[in-house]
């Protein structure tokens, strides 16, 4: 393939990359506002350290493991350090975006995925253990899953041997959200309950931070979803519009559920609804029309509004609802493609005539094929991520230990693990 720079597509992808990177600190605020005053710094540091660890790993060997040739995992040789790599190797060489821009874009997805998991371990995980976890998890779970779905040669990608048609995961329903959600569940199970779980409400110490986080997540998510088109074109426009509409619908849906069920439409509900809608539309952003986007928004909002209560029923301490929001709405969005996909509206699918090409959704005349495909892909990622994460968590637990002492948890993890408190009184 030849490379001709397209400055417009490149401009968009540079900006999209910066936007997606902003999502991780945004998550730090979304999560940090939800915990109590005594753990806000630890919560935020889990996101920040994810950027540190994963960015380095990515240029050293992560890109290669993800996008190198190979069925189950990429061959990183030739990609160590990402130096002197021709722009013709760019994932978006065909639309004139340089290699390093695309490599940086993909890095930001790896970063946020591991950061998302931290929501399930609030208040109680050793910072050193988390740091090790980020390194191991990104290597053993994220890179293989991303390779399977997005490398073009993986087992859940285009024209694979497993699913009836090619699965659609435009921006990370399986790779990012289902993956992080299943991992969050496994890690929460291994870590155990916080002291007071189910008895104390553990209310957010600062709801404006939660709203700031949600707002910046939404802002960044336009890079995430519309950037996943790899260029500035009509499909990016569709992805953008859907990323505006679905979270709006999900926010409204969540607030309606709360108003009916609890009597109040809360700001935490609005923020959570937005994120649920963003998660839901992620895999589907370029393959549904506006009605599909609204439907996915409503389904995600309602499903997650109820799902966040499950932890009390089943007794796992998914502290900040990684499961309830990311796993559940990730599932909703991934499966909903099987219902609402409208392939003439969104992306122009190269090779659309191919028998393995994706099909329209059930409600758009495509039958059950795509739904089956989506379910298989989602299911495989859930199982792989859950099992692998469980094993990694166990390994860390029985080596360096996962959890701080109860004393530290009660007195506050910030002071013990970071030697700081988030706020100092005026004097």
């Amino acid at each position, binding site marked *: 393939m030849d490379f001709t720079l397209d400055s417009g597509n490149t401009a968009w992808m540079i900006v999209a990359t910066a936007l997606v990177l902003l999502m991780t600190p945004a998550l730090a605020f979304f999560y940090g506002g939800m915990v109590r005053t005594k753990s806000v710094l630890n919560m935020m540091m889990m996101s920040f350290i994810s950027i540190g660890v994963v960015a380095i790993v990515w240029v050293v060997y992560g890109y290669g493991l993800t996008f190198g040739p190979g069925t189950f995992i990429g061959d990183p040789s030739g990609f160590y350090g990402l130096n002197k790599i021709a722009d013709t190797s760019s994932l978006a060489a065909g639309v004139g975006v340089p290699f390093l821009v695309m490599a940086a874009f993909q890095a930001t997805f790896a970063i946020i995925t591991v950061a998302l998991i931290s929501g399930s371990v609030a208040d109680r995980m050793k910072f050193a253990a988390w740091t090790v976890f980020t390194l191991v998890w990104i290597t053993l779970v994220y890179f293989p899953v991303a390779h399977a779905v997005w490398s073009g040669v993986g087992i859940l990608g285009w024209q694979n041997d497993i699913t009836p048609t090619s699965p659609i995961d435009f921006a990370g329903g399986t790779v990012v959200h289902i993956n992080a959600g299943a991992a969050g569940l496994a890690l929460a199970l291994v870590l155990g309950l916080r002291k007071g779980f189910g008895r104390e*409400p553990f209310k957010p110490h600062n709801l404006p931070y939660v709203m700031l986080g949600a707002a910046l997540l939404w802002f960044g998510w336009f890079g995430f979803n519309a950037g996943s088109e790899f260029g500035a074109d009509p499909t990016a426009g569709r992805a953008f519009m859907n990323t505006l509409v679905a979270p709006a619908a999900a926010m409204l849906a969540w607030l309606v559920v709360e108003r009916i069920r609890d009597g109040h439409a809360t700001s935490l509900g609005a923020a959570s609804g937005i994120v649920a809608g963003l998660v839901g539309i992620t895999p589907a952003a370029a393959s549904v029309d506006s009605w599909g986007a609204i439907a996915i928004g409503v389904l995600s909002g309602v499903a997650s509004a109820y799902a966040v*209560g499950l932890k009390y029923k089943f007794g796992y301490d998914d502290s900040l609802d990684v499961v309830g929001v990311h796993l559940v709405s990730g599932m909703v969005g991934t499966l909903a493609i099987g219902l609402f996909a409208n392939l003439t509206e969104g992306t122009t699918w190269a090779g659309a005539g191919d028998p393995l090409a994706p099909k329209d959704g059930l409600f758009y005349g495509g039958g059950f094929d795509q739904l089956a495909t989506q379910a298989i892909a989602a299911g495989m990622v859930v199982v792989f991520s859950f099992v692998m994460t469980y094993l990694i968590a166990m390994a860390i637990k029985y080596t360096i230990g996962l959890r701080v002492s109860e004393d530290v948890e009660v007195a506050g993890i910030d002071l013990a693990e970071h030697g700081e408190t988030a706020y100092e009184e005026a004097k």
Partner: protein
Amino acid sequence: MKLVTAIIQPHRVDEVRAAIEAVGVKGVTVSEAAGYGRQKGHTEVYRGAEYTVDLVPKTRLEILVEDADAAAVTDAIVSAAQTGKIGDGKVWVVPVDDVARVRTGEHGADAL
């Protein structure tokens, strides 16, 4: 001298201040507190789960008065803070041995 301490609903502060000024109080110290009494046991729904919230925010007023004024000030507070609902608060009176005004170093009733 006496120290009258009142724990009241935060939104009654303005009314109470007006009431005690009306009975001659010249100064007051205000701080934040939380508490429960009979009000204990109110439940709240949060994210679809129910919780018992028992510490309700209150405002503490402390007022130094001469012995003779303690009862009047107490009554003034009680009637101005009263809404008749549970959680209205408590007032108590404690004996004071001595009071000093920092600015002047005066002691006793002069310092009030």
